[in-house]
Structure formats: C-alpha cells, structure tokens
C-alpha cells in the first residue's frame, strides 16, 4: 500500500512551519523572509530564508529507511521542533535533489529509493553468517561420519567445509559500514566548504599543488583573482592558512584548502603499501586503478590518460554512487571546482606522481561517471620532463 508521508527534515537555522532560527544568537523567529534578527540585529542569510519546508514524498514499500522515518513520524506526531524528525529522517533522505542550493540541508524526496539499493547488505551479512555456521556444522558432521564409517578420505572434505565456514563467520563478525553512513558523515563538512566557496564567490579554477615530500598532505589552492596563465610553481608549501593574502602578488591570494580526497589517498597508499611520489608517469595510472577499484572499492572502474597538456580521468562509480550523486547535487561548487572526494583522490595521486601543480579544468558527474580534466600549470608535458 502506498501512503503519503510528511517528512520533517530540518537543519540548524530553518525550522518547520516557516519559522527560522537565527544562526548567530539562536533566537527563533516567527516567520521566514525577514532580513534581520530581532534579538541580535544580525542579518539572516538568504540561504536560510529560501529553504523550503515540509514536503510530501511517496516512499517505496521496500525501503526500510523510509518506513523507519514514517514510524518515527507516527510515534511523535505532535512534536513540531526541528529536531523531531531527527537522524532517521535525515539518513532516509540523503540522496535527494530538492536542496540543491543548500549544502548543509539534508535532502529528501523522490530519490529515496537510492538508499534502498544498498540496504540489503545487512541481509546479505545475515545470510553469510547462516551459510558459515551451516558449513561448519556440515564439516563436523562429515568428519564424524567419516570416523564412524571408516572413510578417512571423507574427513578431508569435512575439514574443507569446516574451514570455509569458519572464514565466513569470522569475516562477517568484522564491522562493516553502509555507504549511507559514509555519505552522512561527509556531507556536513563538505557543506561548510560549499558555503565558503559560495560566500567568497571566486570563479577561478582550483590548482592542486604539487607535493615535495611523501608525507605532505595534498593541498588545493583556489585563487581569488582570475589568472589565465598561472605560474608553474606557486610555492605555497610553507603556508598553513585558509586564506592566503599576498599583497605583492595578487595571483598568490586565495583559499588554501586540504584536498577533499587527501585522506582517502593516504588510506589508499597505506593499503597498497606504496607512495605515489615514488611512481613514474607510466605506473601511477595502474596504481590509481588498483587502489580505487581493488583496495578502497570506491569506484567500479578508473581510466586515466595523458593528454598533450594534462591528464584526464574517467571514473565509474561503485558502491558510493549515491554519495557521489548527492555531493554533485547538494554541494555543486565543491564537486565541480574542487572535485568530489572520489575525483579528488585520483587528482591528488596524479599530482603526487607527476610532481607538478595541476589545474582542475573541470569535473563533471553524470550518470554514475565522473569526468575530470586537468591541465599542467605553466606548460605542457614535454616541459615537465
């Protein structure tokens, strides 16, 4: 039976029924649309005022996450505050497309079925445990039968069954995390970066800075001034500020951010037991592929190619496709101008291996495929070598 549910999904700032919470002093306002707070007098950002309120969604019957939110709505029908819908509703709607302009807003709505695609993993885990226990029991049974019957060679198969069962049970007992959880833990911090980009409004292209040492964290520089021909080396390695201001050189004024994929790259290097800084131009494409597809399993396929003046990647989404889709919708500036974390891993690895600054010409996310185009800063491939 299909039923309509009103999900109350809110964030800090807007509350239900058009009320708005002042982000500065926390005072609740009676209705949205007012420009300044009564209490502290500070301006209410447009982004908060523009937020849409309760929305009708039609959940699919098989999505237990949606059912969970529906149950929650039934149990607390009279509560009106913004935190009523709480975590359940937020998780339920992560892959939404309705809050495009609200990076921190948790989405809800038509794309709820995305979450249900990966939900059966817990069910698979349950099956795996049942299979493992069954195999252990079968192995013991075979061993007993082989002793009773006197067929010693049968006990070999019993042992095999026992060992596979043991392995299945052990592997199942290890914790695993749903992609929805990764998505939920990532979106808020990316939302903050999105707000910084939107507020400061630079329209320049991001430059991934080269790393000198294997322990360097890949950084990305977003100049505040347009510069069609940035220098081959910005030499910002000593900087540890978010906002870099160089009065002598306006091209060195901008935002210096840790690349969104820097941590993932560190994990990938740890899993592969290598550093991309040691790899040559020929090897690193294979290493990126095996790292992202086999080790981290964040992508289904990665194809990279050197062009005359840069590098391009084509990454096909894997288990984190819903996360990538949500990032492209909810934090479009981060996704297109810095690259989503998945694109950023490949870019960071390239920067580390090539040992040159790379300008992100474009990052697009369409139909489960990330396309990334990078250009060498200050010249072509030949100049690099």
């Amino acid at each position, binding site marked *: 039976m299909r039923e309509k549910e009103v999900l109350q999904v809110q964030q800090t700032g807007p509350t239900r029924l058009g009320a708005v919470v002042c982000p500065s002093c926390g005072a609740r306002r009676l209705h949205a649309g007012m420009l300044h707070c009564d209490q502290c007098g500070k301006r209410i950002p447009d982004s908060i005022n523009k937020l849409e309120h309760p929305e009708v969604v039609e959940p699919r019957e098989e999505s237990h996450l949606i059912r969970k939110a529906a149950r929650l709505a039934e149990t607390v029908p009279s509560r009106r505050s913004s935190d009523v819908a709480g975590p359940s509703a937020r998780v339920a709607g992560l892959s939404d497309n309705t809050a495009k302009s609200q990076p921190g807003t948790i989405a809800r709505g038509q794309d709820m079925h995305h979450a249900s695609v990966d939900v059966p993993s817990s069910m698979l885990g349950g099956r795996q445990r049942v299979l493992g226990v069954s195999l252990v029991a079968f192995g013991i049974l075979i061993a007993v039968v082989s002793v009773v019957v006197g067929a*010693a*060679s*049968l*006990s*070999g*198969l019993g*042992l*095999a069954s026992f*060992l*596979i069962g*043991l*392995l*299945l049970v*052990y*592997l199942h007992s*290890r914790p695993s995390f749903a992609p929805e959880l990764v998505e939920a833990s990532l979106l808020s911090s990316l939302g903050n970066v999105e707000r910084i980009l939107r507020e400061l409004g630079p329209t320049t292209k991001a430059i991934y800075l080269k790393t000198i040492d294997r322990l360097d964290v890949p950084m990305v520089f977003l100049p505040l001034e347009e510069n069609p021909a940035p220098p081959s080396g910005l030499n910002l390695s000593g900087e540890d500020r978010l906002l870099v201001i160089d009065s002598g050189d306006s091209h060195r004024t901008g935002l210096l951010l840790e690349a969104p994929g820097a941590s993932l790259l560190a994990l990938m290097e*740890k*899993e*592969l*037991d290598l550093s991309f800084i040691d790899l040559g131009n020929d090897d690193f494409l294979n290493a990126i592929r*095996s790292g992202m597809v*086999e*080790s981290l*399993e964040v992508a289904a396929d990665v194809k990279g190619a050197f062009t005359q003046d840069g590098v391009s990647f084509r990454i096909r989404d894997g288990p984190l496709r819903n996360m990538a889709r949500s990032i492209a919708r909810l934090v479009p500036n981060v996704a297109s101008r810095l690259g989503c974390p998945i694109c950023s891993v490949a870019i960071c690895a390239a920067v580390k291996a090539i040992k040159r600054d790379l300008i992100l010409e474009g990052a697009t996310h369409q139909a489960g495929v990330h396309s990334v185009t990078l250009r060498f800063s200050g010249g072509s491939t030949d100049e690099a070598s």
Partner: protein
Amino acid sequence: MRLVERYVLSYALAIVVSGLLLMVMGIREIEIYYAVYLIEFLMSLELVASFRRSFGRDLRPIIMVFLFGFAYTVAQRILQILS
C-alpha cells in the same frame, strides 16, 4: 564482486578441488589435507593482501588458529615417530 567475496570464493574453490584431488589420489591422512589447505589459505591471502594490506592484518587471528593447528599436527607426528 567485492574483494573479500572473491577471496572467499576462490579459496573455497581451491580447497574443494584440492580436497577432491587428494581423495582421488587415496590420501587418508588428515594432516596432509590440513597442510595443503593451510598453504592454499596463505597463498590466496598473500595475493589479496597485495591489494589491501589491512586485509592481512584483519585475518591475523585466523592465521594464528591455522598455524596452531598445524603446529599441533606436527607435534603429534614427531611424538608418533619418537615413540
């Protein structure tokens, strides 16, 4: 298919095939089966761990259990020879 699933499937296939082979060859000692399975386990683990180092670390308890079993069979065989 995920790496872990591929690992379990390939290991299962390997030990079933080798088990049947040993059975056809008329091997009756369980220690030999155990040793072969252990070697296959370690080999397949090493192949997978080249992609993911943490996988080898995670399976360390299982490796210890397997090696303990192997040490037990070796000790038993030594005692048998000595007696």
